[in-house]
């Protein structure tokens, strides 16, 4: 029913399945056993393009675009919005 105020059962089941998948993927990540990288071996990791905020200007504009044109928000950062675009 279009006017229903609650989520449908299939939707809730889908959410639960996706959450289980996410938990599973996190568990697999743990098994990847991150290696202990010595300080003198961190030259590549220290490069600007290896930082998560390397493309901050593009990311900031993308947040605005997709916040305005899609029904999802959040993930990489918090805040944003502050406009009547959604």
């Amino acid at each position, binding site marked *: 029913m*279009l*006017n*229903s*105020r*609650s*989520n*449908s059962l299939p*939707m809730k089941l*889908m*959410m639960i399945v*996706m*959450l289980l998948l*996410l938990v599973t*993927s*996190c568990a697999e*990540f743990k098994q*990847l056993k*991150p*290696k*202990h*990288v010595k*300080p003198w*071996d*961190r*030259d*590549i*990791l*220290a*490069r*600007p*393009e*290896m*930082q*998560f905020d390397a*493309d901050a*200007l*593009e990311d*900031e*504009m993308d947040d*605005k*675009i*997709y916040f305005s*044109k*899609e*029904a*999802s*928000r*959040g*993930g*990489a*950062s*918090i*805040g944003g*919005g*502050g*406009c*009547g*675009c*959604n």
Partner: protein
Amino acid sequence: MQLKCKGKISHALAAATCSLLAGTGQAATKDGNWDFTHLHYSEVDRVAVDETLLVYEKGKDEEKGFTFKLYHDTISGATPSGAAPSDTYTSPSGQVYNAGAEQHLLPITDERYAVTAEWSRQHDRLQSSSFGFSLSDELDYSSLGLHYSSERDSKNRLETYKKGFSLSLDFINPEGGVPTPLAPTTDTTRYDSEQKAVVDFLAGYSQVMNRRAVMDFNYTFSYAQGYLTDPYKVISVSNSPLQFEYRPESRASHAFFIRSIYNQKGGILKGSYRLYIDNWGVLSHTVDGSYRMRRAWKGWVVKPRLRFYLQSAASFYSYSYFQATPVTGYASSDYRLGNLATVTMGLYMSRKLKSKRMLSMRLELMQQADRAGVFEPVNVFIAQLSYQYSD
């Protein structure tokens, strides 16, 4: 874990080492960095947005830092109102006809100014935090925001734990006043203004996987309370004038986000996935990937990018409401709450000019479509030009 050069005299050696190791990286500066960017966003036969952003940043990655941003947006063109064309519905029995027809377009024009200021502090070798506020004003909308975040590295600096909080208070003053939800558009009753508040929480964890790879996990929770309806959107109903839409007064959402950066010999591979769910019934998946090629062409760095987005509709969404019974509950025909699929593909290019100056640009094509083909796809062109200067 993010191996930025940290401040304080005791860390000067580490900072210098970082700069040397970075090779092509930017050196830490005391006088500040200036960044300028301009974005042009244009939907075919619909809305066009131009946004300019000026950023001043001082003391980045040092003991005390300050960042100031100034935004200016203009918007013009037309946006779907939610109303189906009047000559397409003749359904006293409630049956939907011409569901594929385009919605009416509503002319739109607006201008927005916004500023944000942020102060950051490196407490010691492992801990940092930042605090800031934002102000935004446009013809029919004003917003005040606050945010706080902090990061703590593990002793070996291979892991980082993050947390953050933000609050915004928004004031909605639509042209002509706020209509009564679900009232016919012929109803002239209007309210002066409405408000809403949004709080966001973030908890995150980053991990160095090996000498060439890092991963990042974030969980964000968002809760909005207040007037979440779009005062300009309407719905088409049977045997009645158009009605104003009506959305719930609260919204709680969860986003689970994972991303990684992997440095290969030829370039850098970036990928991310986000799972989003909320109590409006929206569930979405977002996959984003790019490959940054080093010196692909005459000193230019080239980065192709691909993004996929799939969204299920809000439980109260319908493209139209041609039904036998009157609409009495939440209802919206805003296509952004529908069964959306978005594909974005683009190319990013950057090049270092003289010392401490960099030019970058990107061109992207985006298409938004209804997964069941209810409306025609929306085609979008995105262009961005950026110039960065370190004093």
